[in-house]
């Protein structure tokens, strides 16, 4: 658990870095008036400068209301958060394996793992739910709407 004050400093630092990068890169694209109008980096340069300004304002605001922000706690390292982090990892694996296993096999494995992770323990229910849902997806998207979904690497 960290304080909102600390969060604000993190947000301001990240914003500052992004703002400086955008402004610097935009400057390279050109920010002066040309025969085609303002340079290609003119608009994004304004946005970069805007981000820098907002980062400074956040730091100023946090310093002004230091006590208020210290009192607000942000939960990011508790057991409940790790449920979300586990799901993020699982979803990341699902996305990465999509082109290897293909949509249907990968989705089946993901759904089974996800339901187990979220607390479902009856394997018969887990498998039947995944199969029924994917059958529905197959009928609606692949057969009816002809939407192409990733095929397994061994299929092609």
């Amino acid at each position, binding site marked *: 658990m960290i304080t*909102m004050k600390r*969060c604000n400093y*993190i*947000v301001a630092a990240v914003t500052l870095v*992004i703002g400086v990068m*955008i402004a610097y*890169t*935009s400057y390279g*694209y*050109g920010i002066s*008036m*040309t025969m*085609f*109008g*303002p*340079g*290609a980096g*003119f*608009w*994004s340069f304004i*946005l970069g400068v*805007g*981000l820098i300004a*907002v*980062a400074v304002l*956040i730091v100023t*605001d946090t310093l002004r209301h230091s006590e208020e922000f210290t009192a607000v706690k*942000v939960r*990011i390292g508790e*057991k*409940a*958060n790790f*449920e*979300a982090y586990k*799901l*993020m990892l699982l*979803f990341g694996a*699902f*996305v990465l394996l*999509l*082109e290897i296993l293909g*949509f249907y096999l990968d*989705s089946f494995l*993901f*759904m089974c793992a*996800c*339901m187990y992770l*979220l*607390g*479902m323990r009856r394997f018969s229910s887990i498998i039947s*739910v*995944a199969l029924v*849902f994917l059958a529905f*997806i197959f009928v609606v*998207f692949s057969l009816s*709407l002809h*939407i*192409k*979904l*990733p095929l397994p690497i061994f299929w092609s």
Partner: protein
Amino acid sequence: MDSIIQALGILVTFENLGLLAIGTAVGIFVGAMPGLSVNMGLALLFPITFSVGGWHGIIMLLGIYCGAIYGGSITAILLKTPGTPASAATTLDGYPMARGGQPGRALAISTTASTFGGIFSTVCLVLFAPMLAKVALQFSKPEYFALAIFGISMITSVAPGSILKGIIGCLVGLWIATIGLDPMSGMERFTFGTLYLSGGISFMPILIGLFALTQVFINAEEMYHRSTSTQRITIDSVYPKCDDMKLISPTLVRSSAIGTFIGCVPGTGGDISSWICYNQAKTWAKDKSKFGKGDPRGIAASESGNNSIVGGAFIPVLTLGIPGDGATAIILGALMVHGIQPGPLLFMNHAVDVYTVFLGLMIANFVMGFFGFSLIRLFSKVTMIPMVLLLPIISVMAVIGTYSYANSMQDVYIMFAAGVIGYFMYKFDMGVPGVIIGIILGKLAEQNFTGSLMMSDGSLSIFVTSPICCIFLILALVGLLSPLYKDSVRRIFAK
């Protein structure tokens, strides 16, 4: 009058009404499915118009268009997962109301507002099409830029967290919209040499990531504390209550009028309209504290706002042949394929065609309302699915929706990244709507900003010489500075 009777003769046949009903039902289904957009539904079903032929196909497309915009609200209310970008604002009050045990009430308000907005805008289309088209015709680049800035100013009220952090999201969204080729010089910007980024980043994967996947992660975290994951909610009424109707009536009229006007401005759409209408409803409300916690006016504003663009969007399509958004571009294509050339001459030479579209839209809205009210109980069953089943289903649907949009795996990676970033934005009290608003309005703002400067040889005075431009910019300024003065204004009114 003869034209209207002839148009009715075309429309009121068993075959056409049946196709209109099928189109509307399919539209509601497409809109309700997270990740399936109005445009995608229209594009996917566009080939069907060839098989059914002529007006039959176009009438079906009209039904899909109306139904899909409405359908997006269903999952926005029940799952906090907007089926279409136009319903993103509906999540702000629709989802809290549904979570508070009143999904039927939220859906009833949504259906009422959607039907009212659709019919209102169609009546406006019929009555004021030439006049509204003239107003929209007066818009040039400075006015479009001012309109975009006005939209951006909404972050002051729609950002659920800190306003400064909401502005960060908006600026990042505006920057994302600059990725790709510069429209003026053709120079590649922020592409890092990749082919994928040179085409720019579509907002669809970011939208699905921020609104759907982030919610999956948040729900997974919340499940840890919940004893049961099944949401059993009893619906006592599927029709809006009298008190609700009294409360939302002014909002319905105001939002429908705003939505119709926004709809007739090419380049805008239901997403912009719903946010502006939501913001206006909040601005006009005496008691703003309930907004974001399940206020009926919030749902009504967003839904009447996004559905009322339908009639408005057809004004530039029919009178000028200019599509207002992607969906009307597809319908415009369908009209042209079937031998109907939209433009000023269409009103003079083919009045029957014009009235067929008018009446088709009108009937589609009635059918949409009928389906909405009669199937509300069925729609609400979605929330009874246990979260342990719902989360993997939404995750897989998010992947399908993102991938099928452009058959791109990079879009899926971006969606995943947006979902993870959205989770931490939520934790750090940063509102995600700002990012979406920034992306939606980014191109409109930049192109018209640079275009205006070209028109004025680099002078910024062009933004203050036009009265329309001035009004939009003043309104934007009032909105952006509202955090500075709203407490003082509230104190004055309290006295």
